[in-house]
């Protein structure tokens, strides 16, 4: 009797071993696709795209530059030429969130750094001639809002 059962037992043991080997801890279910999170994702993507254009707009229109510096005279009698410029090579940081005060509206902010560059010289011309060095940085935080999730982020008119 035992000998007749042996193959069955061996088979069952093998089956058990094989099942254990194949069993993989199930991966956790993917995070629920919260509709509001999807809206924020979309708004963020659009704001990030708009941010690149926005910085280009600012660079195009800003008056301050190497050819248009502010000149001041220090207590030591030397002249200092300075201008501001948007820092290159660094990605703008974009944030989006739903407005609480006006349901349905959304707020976007674009943060980037502006550097102040200076050059000192014995004359205004010498100061303007450079070379300029960055002496400080400031964070710019530009706030936009749209009245609905389908509205485009856009420059002021």
């Amino acid at each position, binding site marked *: 009797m035992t000998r007749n059962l042996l193959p069955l037992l061996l088979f069952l043991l093998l089956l058990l071993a094989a099942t254990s080997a194949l069993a993989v801890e199930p991966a956790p279910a993917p995070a629920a696709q919260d509709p509001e999170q999807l809206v924020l994702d979309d708004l963020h993507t659009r704001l990030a795209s708009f941010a690149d254009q926005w910085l280009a707009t600012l660079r195009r229109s800003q008056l301050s530059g190497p050819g248009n510096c502010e000149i001041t005279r220090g207590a030591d009698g030397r002249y200092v030429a300075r201008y501001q410029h948007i820092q290159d090579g660094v990605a703008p940081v974009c944030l989006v969130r739903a407005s609480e*005060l006006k349901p349905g509206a959304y707020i976007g902010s674009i943060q980037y750094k502006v550097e102040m560059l200076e050059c000192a010289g014995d004359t205004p011309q010498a100061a303007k001639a450079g070379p300029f060095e960055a002496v400080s940085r*400031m*964070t710019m935080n530009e706030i936009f809002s749209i009245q609905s999730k389908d509205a485009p982020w856009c420059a002021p008119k």
Partner: protein
Amino acid sequence: MKRLHRLPLALAALAALVLLASAALAAPKMTPKVDNFILFVDYSGSMAMDYKNTNTSKILMAQSAMTSMNQKIPALPYKGALYTFAPFGKVQELKPYDKGALGAAIATIKTNYDIFGRQTAMGDGLASLDPVIGASSGKIAVILFTDGESNLGSDPVAEAKTLYAKYGNRLCLHVVSYADTARGKRIIDEIRSLSKCVVAVDGAALQNAAVLDQFVKDVFYDMGPADADKELIVFRSLNFGFDKSAITPEMLPSLEQALLILKQRPDLSIVVEGHTDSVGSDDYNKRLSDRRAKSVVDWLVQHGIAASRIEYAGHGESQLKYDNTTEEGRALSRRVEIRSK
């Protein structure tokens, strides 16, 4: 006779010393900006996938970036480490920076692994890094190399906030982004926005030598400009009507954002400044911008900001920042700003 021969030699040695000293004085001094840094690499399945339309995996790009970065990091007295998350692991513990040792550690990062089952627990990874940060002293820069995907475990933005709440200005979480999904990009930006110390750079941009040089300068050593803890908030959607200064319902979301920022920084005293374009008389523009700045101040005070914290000023067209010969420039000029004092 022997004494006469020694004199030119002594003079030459003295001259050499003077030259060396001058060179040392003239060379800009590199002051470490941090006492410690941790390279923190996302080792998840999504990082093993190709970045956007390239044929290069994100993990390979990250490893390459770290290798190049390590070459640029000057040998200054900080400690360096290399950790991974998803899964969390120590590749090199925090120890006095040695370019060769860190380079060898970076070289051990696998760039060809099975993506199956390797989900991204970024939040858990940040939480696991807490004791490592806690065991260090002084300032610490954590440089995350990640695509921002976080599909398991705790919320990475919440964990980053917890770390900042615990370590304050001692800590800076820089993120090198390989994000190629909307969610990944948003998570990365939310982490970046938590501190002004952050240097925000994308992984693809770091392949540019000049960008890499600037990143290393900004993160590791202090030869560059001081990062002033100053912020200028510019409202771009306060669309006042012609000759109008009243707050309208459409303006509420923008004002709400400024209110949030100011409530988060109760130490800040501010000036609200109105600006106009150059159309119209100086006097008219000054008065209009004054009224508009006052409207914003009144709204902020009504919503809980102490009046003692705020001043206002209308500058009209006296501080033009943009080219007013174009409509684009004039539109940029018409704005209200909040400047920290």
